[in-house]
């Protein structure tokens, strides 16, 4: 798994994908949080970095789909899928190697935003007066959300050998699972006293963790999401053997 992981990281760096993703993520967030009139924290006047956690899931839909779109589709298109699968590496190791490599890139794009946290902390009155617990929870939620997106993206990449198709499918699935259940929830048809359809969506669990309360139910939700899409990837990975 390590060899695949390192190879993927190298290819992210040499193809500049990693750099572009990190730069785009930081520029978009930086503008949103510090510059744009409607949303910037300085005018807003409250010591928190909530705008970051509102915007990041939306930007990640595009960026993570872009990171993962080539992971398997390119291997299939160029035929290197065959060399890769005839090496003595288990299928799961290949999938997980690619999965963790993509997550690493995402983590490196999130990491510099800790500077935002530090800035707000310094600016707060009195100094250091902000809800660190909630912010750490939000970071945790964001990482889980990103991992969920990566698993969706990896799955979208293996179902096709066309990167564009993979990109669009991945964006659609991420968007659908992130938000659409919230909207569906507004129909009373999907609601009862015992069940709410928004539980199926990422947003519900993401918001819960963001409050700073790490509930096992939310963690289990994200882990299940990842396991489901990794398993689907594994099933499709073996489709050549059907």
């Amino acid at each position, binding site marked *: 798994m390590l060899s695949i992981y390192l190879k993927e990281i190298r*290819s992210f760096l040499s193809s500049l994908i990693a750099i572009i993703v990190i730069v785009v993520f930081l520029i978009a967030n930086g503008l949103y949080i510090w510059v744009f009139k409607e949303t910037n924290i300085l005018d807003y006047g409250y010591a928190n970095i909530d705008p970051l956690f509102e915007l990041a899931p939306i930007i990640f839909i595009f960026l993570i789909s872009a990171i993962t779109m080539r992971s398997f589709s390119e291997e299939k298109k160029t035929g290197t899928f065959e060399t890769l699968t005839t090496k003595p590496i288990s299928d799961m190791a290949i999938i997980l190697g690619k999965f963790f490599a993509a997550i690493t890139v995402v983590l490196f794009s999130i990491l510099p935003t800790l500077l935002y946290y530090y800035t707000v902390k310094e600016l707060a009155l009195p100094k250091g007066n902000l809800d660190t617990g909630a912010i750490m929870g939000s970071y945790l939620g964001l990482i889980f959300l990103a991992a969920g997106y990566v698993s969706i993206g990896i799955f979208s990449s293996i179902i096709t050998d066309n990167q564009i198709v993979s990109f669009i499918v991945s964006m659609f699935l991420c968007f659908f699972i992130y938000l659409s259940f919230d909207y569906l929830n507004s129909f009373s048809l999907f609601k009862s006293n015992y069940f709410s359809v928004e539980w199926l969506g990422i947003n519900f669990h993401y918001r819960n963790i963001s409050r700073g309360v790490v509930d096992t139910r939310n963690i289990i939700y994200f882990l299940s999401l990842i396991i489901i899409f990794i398993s689907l990837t594994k099933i499709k990975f073996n489709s050549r*053997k059907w």
Partner: protein
Amino acid sequence: MSIKVENLTKIYGKQKAVNNLSFEINSGEIVGFLGPNGAGKTTTMKILTCYIPPSAGRAFVNSMNVEEESIAVRKQIGYLPEHNPLYMDMYVKEYLQFVASCYDIKNKTKRVEDMIGLTGLQIEKNKKIGQLSKGYRQRVGLAQAMIHNPSVLILDEPTSGLDPNQIVEIRNLIKAIGQDKTVMLSTHIMQEVEAMCSRIMIINKGEIVANGSASELKLNQSNQVVVVVTFSQKVQNNAALNALGKVNQLDEKTFEIKSNLLEKDLKAAVFQFAVDNQLVIEELNTKNNSLEDIFKKVTQ
């Protein structure tokens, strides 16, 4: 027994790519795998390298079943797929290091250097694979197939698309490395198998139609010797010529003679005939039963 295939069948949808194929390859042999396009060569190789499973039958590499002990089999095999897929945006050295890291190799850096030296990639080792010419890419493909010193090498058309000089280089390379390994290679070039392989297997429509060394195959196909002779003048004494064997007049002065005599006896007889009839021989050739002829014969 390095490779053993028992009643192997592969069906794609409704199409039978490989049909009840059985053969064995001993360790140390270099076997040429021939057949027209779509005969099932690549499919057989893909099954042996654990890329796809057979629909029926079993395949063994070093007595290990390719389906049951897939990972162990993959460690023993070096595989160069058709069209030689490579990561175009990786550097030669980087790529070989990656491949080395997929196997349990003790001293990876040294092994990579060794392979670069062995395959003659020294000048190109710091280039991106995408910048290399086809011949050098093929060398990279061979280097990655052999980096873990496998006991079995499976090469799918290793020389396709190369220029004649490169073909000779790659051929010598395979020959040099294949001395203590079992090599199974597919190709469409007949001279190649004759030059390299200790045994030839021809398959057609998923079945073996010929199996043996080049000389054995030639011998089996026909034991008649055919010579083509061109005299300087018109032949008057046709009766004497006809006595030499089955004569077929190609043009005024050229004849094709088929005979059950040995080659040198037949040639001597033709000379004697020329002397007797005061003719001068301009050309005298033995028409060999070439592998191409055999190939055409068994695959049509």
